[in-house]
């Protein structure tokens, strides 16, 4: 989380909550990703011990919201780099994580995370 699973906003600097409009569908979709409880079942179920479902859920929760936009690229890159550094494996798209997830986090977030990484590298 400390590698970028946040928005850099100090207490007291926020604008009014309704200034940032988020459509209902987008808010619900962000909520789907945010529902992750960080239990680790996805990592335990993965034959590669990859934490991609967890990382992608956090990245895609914030990537879908305007609040997360300013740090969108660095967040995706840094969080994946941290995951690699800590020795988690790579994703080989078996889907075991989704099957094990008690909060029904979808593997589509992993695909979207890969796209986020690709975009940030291509556009940097």
């Amino acid at each position, binding site marked *: 989380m*400390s590698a970028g*699973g946040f928005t850099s906003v100090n207490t007291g600097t926020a604008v009014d909550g309704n200034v940032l409009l988020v459509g209902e569908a987008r808010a619900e979709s962000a909520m789907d990703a945010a529902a992750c409880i960080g239990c680790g079942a996805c990592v335990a179920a993965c034959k590669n011990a990859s934490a991609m479902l967890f990382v992608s859920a956090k990245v895609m929760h914030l990537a879908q919201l305007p609040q997360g936009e300013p740090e969108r690229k660095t967040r995706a890159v840094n969080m994946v780099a941290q995951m690699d550094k800590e020795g988690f494996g790579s994703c080989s798209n078996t889907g075991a994580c989704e099957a094990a997830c008690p909060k029904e986090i979808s593997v589509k977030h992993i695909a979207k995370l890969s796209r986020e990484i690709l975009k940030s590298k291509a556009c940097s």
Partner: protein
Amino acid sequence: MDSRIPAGDLQGKWTRCKFENKLVAPANRKKFTVIVVGSGLAGASAAATLAEQGYKVKVFTYHDSPRRAHSIAAQGGINAAKNYQNDGDSVYRLFYDTIKGGDFRAREANVYRLAEVSASIIDQCVAQGVPFAREYGGTLTNRSFGGAQVSRTFYARGQTGQQLLLGAYSALMRQYGLKHLELHAREEMLDLVVVDGKARGIVTRNLKTGALQTHTADAVVLATGGYGNIFYLSTNAKKSNATAAWRAYKRGALMANPCFTQIHPTCIPVTGDHQSKLTLMSESLRNDGRVWVPKAKGDKRPPSQIPVDERDYYLERMYPSFGNLAPRDIASRAAKRVCDEGRGVGSSGLAVYLDFADAIRVQGKETIETKYGNLFAMYEKITDENPYEVPMRIYPAVHYVMGGLWVDYHLMSNLPGLFVLGEANFSDHGANRLGASALMQGLADGYFVAPYTIGNYLGGTKLAPAPLSHEAFAGTLGDVKARIALLSKNKSGTSALEFHRNLGKILWEHCGMARNDAGLKKAIGEIKTLREAFWEDVFIPGSETNMNSELELAGRVADFMELAELMCVDALERKESCGGHLREESQTPEGEAQRDDSKYCYVAAWQYQGEGQPAKMHKENLVFENVKLAERNYK
């Protein structure tokens, strides 16, 4: 006992207080260390904010990660006086609702400040990316909660607490990544170190290795939650306990209104002795669910076969203007009353129905699923009944404690340098808390109040150095060691859990929703006997020098044993009914709770007088300059 409420009109108090506060210049802040114990909403938000301001912060949690704190379990929502629904809400109305909901047993100034900063909390959380529910146009949406006639509750499905905690946690972890704070996970605070009358440090036990350690600081923040688990069966997490607060009490901090506990009306009923905890069903369900019992006593027909005219929708009948959204204490007492009359449902007869059939008919199953899907799923997992088809069965259960360590307007205890935030303090909810106000209070204290008042304390107090070599640290550490040795002395005996279960039964019976003089006196006697038996016979397997959950539990239960007695003493002393508590000697002719403002309009703050001595009560009289004390009428 000086509550340090700023003078002047209610609306200007907090502004004046902030202006009059001493400041610490940005460059000097790194010279001060603040210990924060607890990483729930109040602790995480305070720690993150203090670290952002530039103080050195050390965070302690007994969890493996700060994100495991029990705040995460809050379901329904968080109140804020935004008036986004254009339905007449205002800071003053939130203030008034909270004071009235608390049965006029809270400080006006504190509650007004809470209402005042509530709007900033929402802004802050939105900025952190908390995915609050939205309207199609993109604006924030709200729902209603008990005790209010406006929609001011913000929510993130049925997991608002989780999302708010993840917000605070992400702010905390950001500061951790920037190396602005130290994080000590799996360290449980076992005592408070007081140097020259000021809180200067703590003693902790590493839960993995059993190692005891001392830590020094310039101020200590306790955000250690409530002690509802004292009842054994409660909706609190199994680990939640009173130890940090109780240790502070025994070092001189006052404990205020300990008998004020909240019994939440919508929990899954108790099923038997095997159960270790209870599960809450969010109060938000009462927005669409209708509460009823059969009109006839002992009617054992399945709910679908009881025609509408043989059902008693008792909340709608008794409280037509608030209906199913009557405040928690009122709804709980009403449920107890109908069950005492023999009209309870389910095999135990200790449950009432919460029925969604009408809501599903009018709004459609899909809408109900969007609003409460995860709650319905959780209910089905636990009870094996599908709430889309049969009504839920619910019954009141211990959920929250309004009582806690006494604090002044600055959230500082009578022990200088000890700040108490969130559920651990007694400040804002009086004798009953309204729904969706706990999240509000925790975050208000942590984000917007304590960071100012702690700065004032550090800026305005001359603090002598308190190195770990100071004799107070060795002394306190010695006390902790002696206590652990005493707990571990038996080679066989009874488990701490068994004692805890028995303690819970005594309290639920005599110090729960209804209390009376004889019952409380009996409870005090029983608790004393049980406590003696505990020290005589408690057996802790395993060693004290490595991970030992039995030892952790025994220490917590030992403190519960002492606190339980103080709760009963406090309840005995308060001979009025107020908030969630019916004092049987004090009822209106209709059987409603009768408050006695002439005698009991005060905060009872208890001071420890030494082992075996009765605690001494200090009264802080509550002065109401703005609201008129009225009978709480939700009819």
